[in-house]
């Protein structure tokens, strides 16, 4: 009698059980994954480098150090005394400042490209998947057609025809990046469509677009976020590829691809730092995004539980 009472008292006195949401669960799983957390820290450091770098750089990214010019292999070495922490490029411009600037552009392109793809691709895929039938058929055929075009060539074509600018780069990358996302969102929507809560929404007379925005898209978010983190590095690779060909952003603006290209073309002259500095940031950022993406997938993918 007493024993039962005390248990009941304990239960009554205990704090109410706190529910764990999907996101809290995912966060806990993500934080347990060491590689993913390390990746996240690396990404935060790179972001800090891009944001704080301009404030601490002793040189401007456009100024030429005339003391160094003509003697870059010796005078342009990375050193603390001259203030060229990463050395200078072949024209005597400070590589630290240029790498900071390139990091800004590359990250910007990666994130904006992924954002466009998330917004356009998710909406497109959700609409196609939700309405199904002929609409779905036509919409996905269009995606198939666009996918079978060697888009990099079309992007180069666009850049040549409409002039090289950051805006054109965003448009061009945005044009192609949403295709995969649309497919993924559609596939996921097809499985969501049969769920009881969607049926309930339909039965209570919610309009289709409200259902898509309020009920479908929030449930797509997990998959979309995972894919978006993996999309950022591929956008960065696209942009670097374009810049490597000399068709990306224009001087004095630069990006990782352009810096790697510059460094690679000076490789014979014993000025390896020109290649290594941008390459280092490029590689650790990609690693960071891949690990974070994998960690997010493990944390959010319901299949792996």
């Amino acid at each position, binding site marked *: 009698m007493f024993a039962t009472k005390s248990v009941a008292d304990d239960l009554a006195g205990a704090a109410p059980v706190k529910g764990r949401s999907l996101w809290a669960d995912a966060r806990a799983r993500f934080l347990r994954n060491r590689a993913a957390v390390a990746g996240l820290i690396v990404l935060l450091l790179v972001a800090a480098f891009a944001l704080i770098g301009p404030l601490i750089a002793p040189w401007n990214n456009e100024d030429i150090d005339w003391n160094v010019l003509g003697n870059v292999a010796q005078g342009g070495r990375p050193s603390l005394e001259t203030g060229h922490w990463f050395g200078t490029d072949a024209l005597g411009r400070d590589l630290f400042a240029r790498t900071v600037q390139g990091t800004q552009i590359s990250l910007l392109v990666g994130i904006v490209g992924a954002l466009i793809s998330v917004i356009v691709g998710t909406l497109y895929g959700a609409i196609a998947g939700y309405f199904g039938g002929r609409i779905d058929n036509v919409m996905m055929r269009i995606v198939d057609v666009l996918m079978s*075009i060697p888009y990099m060539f079309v992007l180069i074509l666009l850049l040549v025809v409409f002039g090289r600018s950051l805006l054109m780069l965003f448009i061009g990358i945005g044009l192609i990046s949403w295709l995969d996302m649309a497919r993924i969102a559609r596939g996921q929507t097809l499985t969501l469509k049969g769920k009881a809560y969607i049926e309930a929404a339909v039965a209570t007379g919610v309009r289709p677009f409200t259902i898509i925005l309020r009920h479908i898209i929030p449930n797509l978010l997990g998959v979309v976020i995972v894919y978006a983190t993996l999309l950022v590095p591929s956008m960065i690779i696209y942009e670097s590829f374009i810049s490597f060909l000399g068709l990306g952003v224009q001087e004095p603006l630069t990006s990782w691809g352009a810096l790697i290209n510059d460094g690679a073309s000076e490789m014979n002259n014993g000025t390896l730092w020109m290649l290594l500095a941008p390459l280092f940031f490029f590689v650790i950022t990609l690693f960071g995004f891949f690990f974070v993406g994998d960690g997010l997938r493990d944390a959010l993918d319901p299949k792996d539980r």
Partner: protein
Amino acid sequence: MVVYIIKRLLIAIPVLLILIVSTFILMYAAPGSPFATERGIPPAVLANLQAQYGLDQPFHIQIWRYVVGVVTEFDFGPSFIYRDQDVNDLIGQGFPVTLTYGFWSFLVAVIVGGSLGILAAVRHNTWLDYLAVGVSIGAQVLPNFVLAPILVLTFTLWLGWLPGGGWQGGQWQFVILPVIALSTSFMASIARISRASMLEVLTSNYIRTARAKGLPMRRVIFRHALKPALLPVISYLGPAFVGMITGSVVIDIYFSTGGIGQFFVASALNRDYGVMMGITILLGALTIFFNLLVDVLYAWIDPKIRY
């Protein structure tokens, strides 16, 4: 099956036409002219030049002529920059080169990547598995335009084993570095995909049955597990092919191999519209055809697919 192939071919034709027409419209809308020089050309000469190339005709006649030329005679028109050559000549020069190292890269990526992935899955959680996973993650962050300079730095400048560029009619020394640079990241992807799918297959019930019957491991892997495990790899071949075509531009520029990628970028910078369109259309057609091939192969191997 035959009906399916015919149906796919019939879809490919409008896609190709859309590609041709849209690139033509893009080029037509482009500002600047291939004949523009710094000094400027007298109007009369310019008019003559434009008449020569048919650029004075109204839009619909130009596009009709171009499409008919491409479709009926496989004629991509003249190059606006290399005055004595037309687009077909340039493509004829560069394409065999691209095809040679592209073919080898594809082979290396599929065979090395596939066997690495399968081996890693079969020897799951051994040093071989870890090595394969490590290599494929490392290769993922080294796209061809990053790998190419590193390779040249190592094998040409430091070790001096292989030439850092040139083609020389495709002698093997000149092919090795381009093939490594082009194939590595795709090899890594294929290794990752085949490892994941092989792991999944190896834990499935029918493999357990096969092993329970007492079949030797070798037989289980080759007769029962390999075919289903390779299906995801096959569906990746299409995107891999597109990626390699794109990557060939980097290879051509970096190693001066003289493939069509070189002409593409040169023509992009020179506004040589004829060459740009020709190469875009050629590669588009190749991609469409290759995707068709992959789909047919997939349908042929996977008994679950009925068309």
